[in-house]
């Protein structure tokens, strides 16, 4: 990355959000921001960066937008622009520009938009990723992603999706949607595409900065940091390595500590939501030795909060590690997750420990029928081969 790319990544979301606040139109704001960044790319290397890069970008973009609107008066009549005085370059510093990224985030993650559109818009507007980059990250053709973004932006405008932080009575639901989008981006990245995990962490940091009193925002960032800290140890030669077999020297200890501190802050702020439970679980998994009874209890609580059978499956694994393999097997066999390969892999592992080898073999076979990822497949094949005859 050149220094200019860094500025671009750091400032894009803020500049765009400020412009939307000013212009009241996402497309116009995006075009203006692109113009301003293009001028910067051309001018800054030659003349040096201005003292207040963000203010310079916002002011330049604003003036560009005004020029554009003057050329198109019918459009001008439809924007808020006529109500504002002309902006002049160079007399703004950063402090007078309101940070409106939170408004933008709530717009992008509005439940009236499809989830895949929420994700794409968030990455485009706040992350500053190009359409092509987002398409590549989600393995869809660029044209498809372009249409998805155009359609979503059109809906925001046509249906009147507001650019604001929701009022208190809507906030819990809307915040949950924002957190879900960020975590979804992280998990896409956790499956191997690291740039998305990094992007989700950037968004998580912004969210903590913007909502410093919100426990779940801290908890989500904690969760992502702790899981991401183990990334280098999760794969060896393209094969998934289980937590207990991971080389702990590959863990990013500093990042885990940062995650723990954020988790403490989340707990101090008084919530007990799903991200806090997950972050607490992730932190406990980083301990040596792991406190399995405590983990089983936290998974149990998380299963109650989320109603997720996948969490119950994890609870079963923790129960087994805590010593009760029979109890764990009973939990697993009560779950309706027939199409989920982890269910069969977990069941196989428990049966193996109970020396029920034939049943274990059948369960590994079923897991292998269902698995999609090559790394997971190699892991299962290894386990199956290790079974005694």
């Amino acid at each position, binding site marked *: 990355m050149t220094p200019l790319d860094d500025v671009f990544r750091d400032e894009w979301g803020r500049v765009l959000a400020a412009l939307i606040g000013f212009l009241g139109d996402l497309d116009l704001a995006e075009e203006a921001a692109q113009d301003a960044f293009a001028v910067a790319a051309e001018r800054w290397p030659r003349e040096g960066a201005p003292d207040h890069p963000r203010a310079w970008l916002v002011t330049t973009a604003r003036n560009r937008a005004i020029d554009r609107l003057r050329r198109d008066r019918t459009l001008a009549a439809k924007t808020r622009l006529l109500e504002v005085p002309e902006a002049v370059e160079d007399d703004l510093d950063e402090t007078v520009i309101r940070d409106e990224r939170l408004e933008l985030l709530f717009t992008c993650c*509005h439940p*009236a938009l499809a989830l895949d559109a929420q994700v794409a818009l968030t990455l485009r507007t706040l992350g500053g990723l190009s359409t092509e980059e987002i398409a590549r990250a989600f393995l869809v053709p660029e044209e498809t992603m372009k249409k998805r973004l155009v359609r979503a932006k059109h809906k925001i405008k*046509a*249906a*009147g*999706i*507001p650019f604001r932080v*929701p009022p208190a009575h*809507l906030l819990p639901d809307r915040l949950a949607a924002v957190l879900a989008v960020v975590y979804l981006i992280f998990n896409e990245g956790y499956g191997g595409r690291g740039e998305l995990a990094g992007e989700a962490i950037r968004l998580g940091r912004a969210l903590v900065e913007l909502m410093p009193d919100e426990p779940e925002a801290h908890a989500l960032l904690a969760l992502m940091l702790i899981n991401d800290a183990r990334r280098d140890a999760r794969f060896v030669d393209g094969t998934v390595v289980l937590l207990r077999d991971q080389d702990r020297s590959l863990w990013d200890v500093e990042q885990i500590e940062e995650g723990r501190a954020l988790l403490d802050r989340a707990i101090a702020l008084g919530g007990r939501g799903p991200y806090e439970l997950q972050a607490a679980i992730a932190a406990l998994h980083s301990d040596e030795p792991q406190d399995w009874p405590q983990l089983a209890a936290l998974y149990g609580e998380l299963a109650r909060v989320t109603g997720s059978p996948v969490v119950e499956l994890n609870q079963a694994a923790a129960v087994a590690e805590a010593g009760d393999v029979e109890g764990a097997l009973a939990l697993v066999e009560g779950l309706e997750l027939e199409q989920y390969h982890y269910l069969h892999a977990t069941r196989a592992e428990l049966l193996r420990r109970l020396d029920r080898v034939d049943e274990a073999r059948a369960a590994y076979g079923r897991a292998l029928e269902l698995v999609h990822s090559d790394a997971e497949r190699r892991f299962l094949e290894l386990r199956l081969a290790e079974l005694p005859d």
Partner: protein
Amino acid sequence: MKYLMLIHQGDTPTPRDPEAWATLSEDEQQAVYADYQAINQTPGVTPGLGLDDPSTATTVRVEDGRTLTTDGPFVAVKEALGGYLVFEADDLDAAIQLAARIPAARLGGAVEVRPVVEY
């Protein structure tokens, strides 16, 4: 902004079907009337005209200049429009909030919120 609220009754019990209507308690029936009344009196709401049952609908098409009529609504009876109203609101959040107060939305039907294009 102006929104058209299309009320799809779905499985919602209505007084037009006395058997289904009787599955609601007296209190629930009163609440349905009271809710519709409150919605119609909400500032910004222009109540729609009352529609008769979808089974009374006639669907008209024109093919090669010939008018073709068929019995029943264009979509399946269950998906047919049961009523509508117009709501003038600041933004989609306000429209969603009003839509959620329409009894059909909680009784087995759904409300489609459509922005009205203004030229």
